[in-house]
C-alpha cells in the first residue's frame, strides 16, 4: 500500500477567539469556524472541515495568537 504523510491537529477549543488568522493561511483550506459549537468565551472555535487533507505544515499554529493548536504528523497508508 502507498503511504503518505498526514497532519494531525490538537485544537484547544476553549482558547480560540475566532480570529481567523489560521483559516486565512491554511494552504489546503480545511480550517473553518464551527457551525455547531460556541465556547465559553462566546466564540465559534475552529475545526477541521476535512482532516484527511491536513498536510501538517503548522502554518495555522505559527499564526495562532492564543496557542490553540499543536501539530503532529503521521504516516498513513492510503488505498490507490
Amino acid at each position, binding site marked *: 500500500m502507498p503511504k503518505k504523510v498526514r497532519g494531525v491537529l490538537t485544537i484547544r477549543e476553549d482558547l480560540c477567539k475566532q480570529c481567523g488568522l489560521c483559516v486565512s493561511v491554511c494552504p489546503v483550506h480545511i480550517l473553518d469556524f464551527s457551525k455547531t459549537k460556541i465556547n465559553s468565551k462566546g466564540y465559534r472555535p475552529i475545526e477541521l472541515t476535512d482532516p484527511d487533507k491536513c498536510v501538517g505544515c503548522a502554518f495555522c*499554529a505559527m499564526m495562532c495568537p492564543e*496557542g490553540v493548536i499543536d501539530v503532529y504528523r503521521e504516516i498513513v497508508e492510503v488505498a490507490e
Partner: protein
Amino acid sequence: MGNLQVVYEVPKIYTGPNHYCPGCFHGIIHRVIAEILQEEGWDDISIGIAPVGCAVLAYDYIDIDWFEAPHGRACANATGIKWAWPDRLVFTYQGDGDAASIGFAETSYAAVRGVNITTIMVNNAVYGMTGGQMAPTTLVGMKTTTSPYGRDPKYAGYPVKMAEHIAQFEGTALSVRVSAFDPQHVLDMKKWIKKAFQYQMEGKGYTFIEVVSTCPTNWRMDPVKAAEFVKNEMIKVYPLGVYKDVGEEKKEG
C-alpha cells in the same frame, strides 16, 4: 497508524488564556518569545520587563520572572536589573506609545549606553489599551480617536521610525524591523528575536526588534484584514529589514 511525530507544540511556558483581542499579534509575539526561551533553556535566567499598554499583563503569559514598569520607563528599569544581574537575559516588551513616545528618552538612552538588554517594540500605530488614540507611529492621515480628522503633520508631526533611530547609536548591536502577518514572517521574526537574545548573551550591546503589528479593534478591521493592512500599507512606511547588525565584529572582553 504510524507514530505521531511532533511538528509544533505550543511552548509550555506560554501560559494563557490571554486578554488580547481576537487576532492581536501580541499573542503570536509572546508565543514566539516563549518558544525561543524554552528551546534555548533561557527561561530560568530571563527577566522580562512588561510595559504600560496592552501588554501590561504580559507577566501572566510567559512563565519567567517579570517586572512591571511605569509607563515608558521599561529600558531604565531594565538597565537597573541588568547591572544587578549582568549575566541574565533581560528584555523589555513594549508598545510603540510606551517605547517611542513617553519612553523615547529611556529607549534611546539604552542604545546610547549600549546597555546589554533587548527591546521588543510592537508597533501597531495606535494606543490600543486606552482606546485607540494617536501614537507616535500613527500613519499620516490615519484616523484615531485623538486624530479624528486624520493625523495632521502640522500639529502631530510625522511617524517615528524607531528601528532606523536606534540603529544610529554606537551602543546598538542589532536593530531590525520584522512583522508577523504570515507564517514566513513569524519564522523570520523568531530568527531575529533569537539573534538579539544571543547577542545579548554574548555581551554585544543593545538589541532592538521592532515588530510591525496590528490592532484589529481600534483599526476597526477583522484580524485577517488587519494583517493584510500591515502587509500592504504599514510596511510601506515601516520597511522591514536589518538596520544595524554588528555581527561578529564587536565583542566585549
